């Protein structure tokens, strides 16, 4: 972990890959996301198996509102874009812009999460509780797992921002920012699938 390349002078263009630790983290995180893909794949499979079992609860067609989900989607997709801007700022070694874009990302993510909480609350009032039917259980588990990932990502981003503020950009903090970026894109991709499989197919299929 000779992570002190700033001693020798300038931070390299891609500080996240400057040390073996950094490279290890990136390789490992790609693999971790592979595992996460299986995790969500299994959740999707469970949802697809059970989504027809509505019992006495409200139907997806009755529950889902396109407007709400469209706004949530727009927020999350935009936050993915702003996380790319954050990474570009990092490669320019512009810590101020990096922090700025991370803050925007967190705000957008928090707004998404807020909408999701509102949405779940609304559904519960409509009689769509966790234990209503196999459909409701698998719905809340799939979408909830995604929501939990978003919440974790927000806390993570805040922790990284505090570190950037205190210690600046170096070969220890840079891989963290990069990993967060990868994580955030992954969350985004999962949401695209949720949008399609849960909401679109819920209204159409």
């Amino acid at each position: 972990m000779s992570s002190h390349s700033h001693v020798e002078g300038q931070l390299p263009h891609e500080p996240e890959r400057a040390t073996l630790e950094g490279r290890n983290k990136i390789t490992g995180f790609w693999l971790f996301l592979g595992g996460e893909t299986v995790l969500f794949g299994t959740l999707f499979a469970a949802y697809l198996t059970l989504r027809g079992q509505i019992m006495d609860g409200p139907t997806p067609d009755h529950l889902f509102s396109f407007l709400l989900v469209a706004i949530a989607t727009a927020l999350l997709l935009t936050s993915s874009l702003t996380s790319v801007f954050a990474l570009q700022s990092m490669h320019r070694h512009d810590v101020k812009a990096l922090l700025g874009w991370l803050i925007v990302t967190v705000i957008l993510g928090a707004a998404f999460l807020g909408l999701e909480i509102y949405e779940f609350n609304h559904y519960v009032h409509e009689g769509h509780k966790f234990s209503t039917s196999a459909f409701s259980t698998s719905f809340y588990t799939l979408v909830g797992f995604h929501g939990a990932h978003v919440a974790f990502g927000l806390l993570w981003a805040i922790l990284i921002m505090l570190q950037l503020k205190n210690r600046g950009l170096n070969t220890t903090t840079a891989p963290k920012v990069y990993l967060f970026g990868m994580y955030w894109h992954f969350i985004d991709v999962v949401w695209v699938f949720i949008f399609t499989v849960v909401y679109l197919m819920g209204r159409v299929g």
Partner: protein
Amino acid sequence: MAHAHTVKRHTGIMDWLTTVDHKKIGILYMLAGGIFFLVGGLEAILIRLQLMYPQSEVVSAQTYNELITMHGTTMIFLAAMPMLFGFMNAVIPLQIGARDVAYPFVNALGFWTFFFGGLLLNISFFVGTVPDAGWTMYAPLSGTTHTEHFGTDYYVIGLQIAGIGTLIGGINFLVTIINMRAPGMTFMRMPMFTWATFITSALILFAFPALTVGLAALMFDRLFNGNFFDPSAGGNVVLWEHIFWIFGHPEVYILILPAFGIISEVVSTFSRKRLFGYSSMVFATILIGFLGFMVWAHHMFTTGLGPIANALFSVATMLIAVPTGIKIFNWLFTLWGGSIKFTVANLFAIGFIPTFVMGGVTGVMLSVAPADYQYHDSYFVVAHFHYVIVGGLIMGIFAGLHYWWPKMFGRMLSEKLGLWTFWTFYIGFHLTFFVQHFLGLLGMPRRIWQYLDGMGLNELNFISTIGALLMGVGTILLVINIIITNSKPKTASNDPWEDGRTLEWTIPSPAPEYNFAQTPLVRAYDAWWEEKMEGNTKMTPVEPIGPIHMPSPSILPFFMGLGLFIAGFGFMYAREFGTVSLVIGIAGLAITFICMGLRSWIDDHGFHIEEEEILKDQGVKA
């Protein structure tokens, strides 16, 4: 040095609680896995004692169900896998010429989550509500309707916590093998055990998240009234079977591939020959790993998936016999014409070959879907999977134990006692399980508590129990061997077998904290053997001796595991004790997450082992 941080280097128990050294973590895995192995073995002996005579009542029916459930769960998740992780930790960095694994901290975390998960599972014995729905936890039997007590909760939460450790361990070894190999160690020069670990880790990565979801779903059903597997609310019990076996079948290859790797090393070393067909061995390993994901429904032939699904899964299963056969022949051809040394390690390896072939043949028999309707849930299946798991995996582990013991501890296990271990265990094993094929064909169902007299099952069951006791004797002999060896001085040389082929035999036994004083240059497959053949007495170094960077020890992994342990109890008992319990659960999770935050927050650059210390080590050993 500009960064000579003074890091406290702990001693005694604190050293073991805070260690991030892969060699020590390997020993911890071995120790914990070994203890769980003895627990699981004791459960097995109780099972066999109950079945020794018809209609006996050594244990009650309820206890019997608990024993079979815990025996399977313990042996697979808490004994076999940790012991394999022990070998991976002890050997992989040494085999690839690395100073450590990619993530030493995560490595420690993996151990502690496994340990606390296993502890949680086994505490159920003391609480009195033990998992009793079979290690496969089929729904709806595992639901609250049929098992209201906390047994299944212990299973679900204990395995979930232990599973985290396995998953991060798998990722760790993947990255270690991809990024940390010594110069010249190309993929096609990696030792077979490293290859096997690589593929196994990939299987862990893609199989365990399915189990995570399955366990989470069952937990939601039980703790929060979910309906995944509750047919009365639209749930689907076959869904559990699919999820469980999509994880469960790769799991058996997760278990056996490292054993294949160990056998390859041992057979090649003690035949004093290059492994026959190395590249086909690598290819076969990859192919087995790939096909391992395509065959899960062969556990469900009688579930009623229909003839098309059964036929496809049947054919896919038979296909696995091809790469496995390649491996068997490669081992035989390695032995062929070699100047074989019959050390204990090699006896286990050679004993493994016919035993595993028998397990493979019954495997192909079981893969024939129409015939499986006869074998299903009978003792034939029990015999089959014990032939591949005990006769395959455990023999591999015992071979590895005798082979790498000097590298791990600096002392040779007694070969004389080892011979006794081998023969008692080997004969005991075949005595126990060979007859079970016929018990199965005679119609004895698995998992039954008693059988009636006069059904022709008495003699074979009696023989089987005698065999199990003999296996117990073999295991006790191994434990005695370990205790005796432990009291002897550390006299093992760098290459105690004198025929070592791979990099771990180029450094002192046990390896120093930094493994390699100088990173070696790898010039061929079987790097060390090649150097010896050229008359060299050491590897060519790629760097001068200099200060070596080491990661700092940390107590955080221990507390992260402990936090999950507390959280598990809290959430489990919320059903009975309400809010208080829930608060404890949340507090436990908080401990884990706060430690995680601390880990991120504290910039820890480790410390350096200085040149003088390395030179001193070498002076002592050289």
